[in-house]
């Protein structure tokens, strides 16, 4: 069944929410976001192989199992690196699976071209946009909410409201609207370009068809009375057009 396309900017914004709800510091957010990117790229690559042989909902379920397995492996690895940001993140790494799951929406449910190159293209655009958006939100939250940046005091006046989920919704809404405006502008220009290309293709096809009709008419091959029928129908149309005028 064909599903309607979801705005990719909204998908990226939704995937920021699980990470933003569990931490306020930029260093943790950036670290978790990079883990999300890694998990997403590897899981999508594995799932792309079996896309043609499974139902889309089942593909998503398999994708989530792969994401869960990778995230479990990452949480197990953190025990090897004590006193690092990896260790401090702890159980928060599990929430990377939720963000990676949301990011997989467009890739799994609305993949118009079933090619690995199309997967690669979407991954190269989605992951940097996700990293950019979540980093910007976390910078605003930490600088203006806590008065620090990467753990260093900045001296800015703070507003504790921004560290609450309500404040994060507000910042995310404004940044999403800004990105959405940019995306709508690009997609409108792409649509106009596609229409222009389609128009010129139709024009070229019409000219080629006229040439082919001329070649057939000029040839001496028996056409079983088809040309007389065409001429008769054309004269009927012209006659009716004359009557309307």
């Amino acid at each position, binding site marked *: 069944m064909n599903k309607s396309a979801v705005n990719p900017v909204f998908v990226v914004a939704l995937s920021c929410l699980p990470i933003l709800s569990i931490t306020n510091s930029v260093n943790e957010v950036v670290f978790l976001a990079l883990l999300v990117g890694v998990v997403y790229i590897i899981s999508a690559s594995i799932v792309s192989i079996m896309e043609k042989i499974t139902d889309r909902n089942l593909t998503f379920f398999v994708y989530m199992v792969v994401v*869960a397995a990778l995230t479990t492996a990452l949480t197990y690895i953190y025990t090897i690196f004590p006193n690092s940001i990896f260790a401090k993140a702890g159980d928060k790494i599990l*929430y990377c699976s*939720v963000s990676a799951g949301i990011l997989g929406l467009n890739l799994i449910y609305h993949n118009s071209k079933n090619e690995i190159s199309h997967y690669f293209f979407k991954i190269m655009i989605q992951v940097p946009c996700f990293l950019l958006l979540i980093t910007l939100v976390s910078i605003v939250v930490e600088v203006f909410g806590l008065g620090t940046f990467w753990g260093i005091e900045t001296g800015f006046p703070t507003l504790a409201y921004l560290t609450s989920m309500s404040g994060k919704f*507000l910042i995310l809404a404004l940044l999403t609207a800004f990105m959405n405006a940019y995306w709508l502008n690009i997609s409108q220009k792409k649509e106009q370009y596609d229409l222009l290309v389609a128009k010129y293709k139709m024009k070229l096809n019409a000219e080629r068809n006229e040439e082919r009709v001329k070649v057939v008419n000029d040839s001496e091959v028996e056409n079983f009375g088809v040309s007389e029928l065409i001429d008769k129908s054309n004269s009927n149309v012209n006659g009716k057009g004359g009557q309307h005028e």
Partner: protein
Amino acid sequence: MNNILQILLVCTVTSNVCVCNGFGVPLLLANKRSFAYTGLISLIFAIVLTLSGLSYYLLYNYVLKPFGVEFLRLIVLVLLTGIFNFVAYYILKAINKEVFFIYEKSYTFMFMFVSILAIVLSFDLTLAIVDTVLTFLFYGLGFTIVNFIIYGAYFKLNGTLAPKYMRGLPLVLLLLSIIGLAVFVI
């Protein structure tokens, strides 16, 4: 009775899954075609969340923890959430094809999957079993309240007066931010 009231207030107001931690927000974007459909999605969400959460709680406390394999909890949770979501999916398909068509077309399966995954991940597994069941049920109630508030404003949010780039998620997030300030006291 006091305990039930306390859990009710915590789950619907101070720890609401949509307004207080944002885990239920993806499912808020499901199709808002009608009041009845919105209610149906909220009901399915509450039931699937309760079943997934309870089965995860039991498996974690009576299987994973005693055998020392808690590190597998995420995979177990994904499997359980997937199973219950698929059960709901196929029951809906068998009952009503028209409603199932809307359910299928608007990514509800996927949004419900990730929302339930996030909510159950954040749940405290040291509570008693009765408190666990009540908590998940009241999480569903909290989601239903916010879902109907969004439904009431949905057609105005996405109407012609709203700028094109604000329609959809940005306005929903703004509304949640205002609800959080005004009602849920966070």
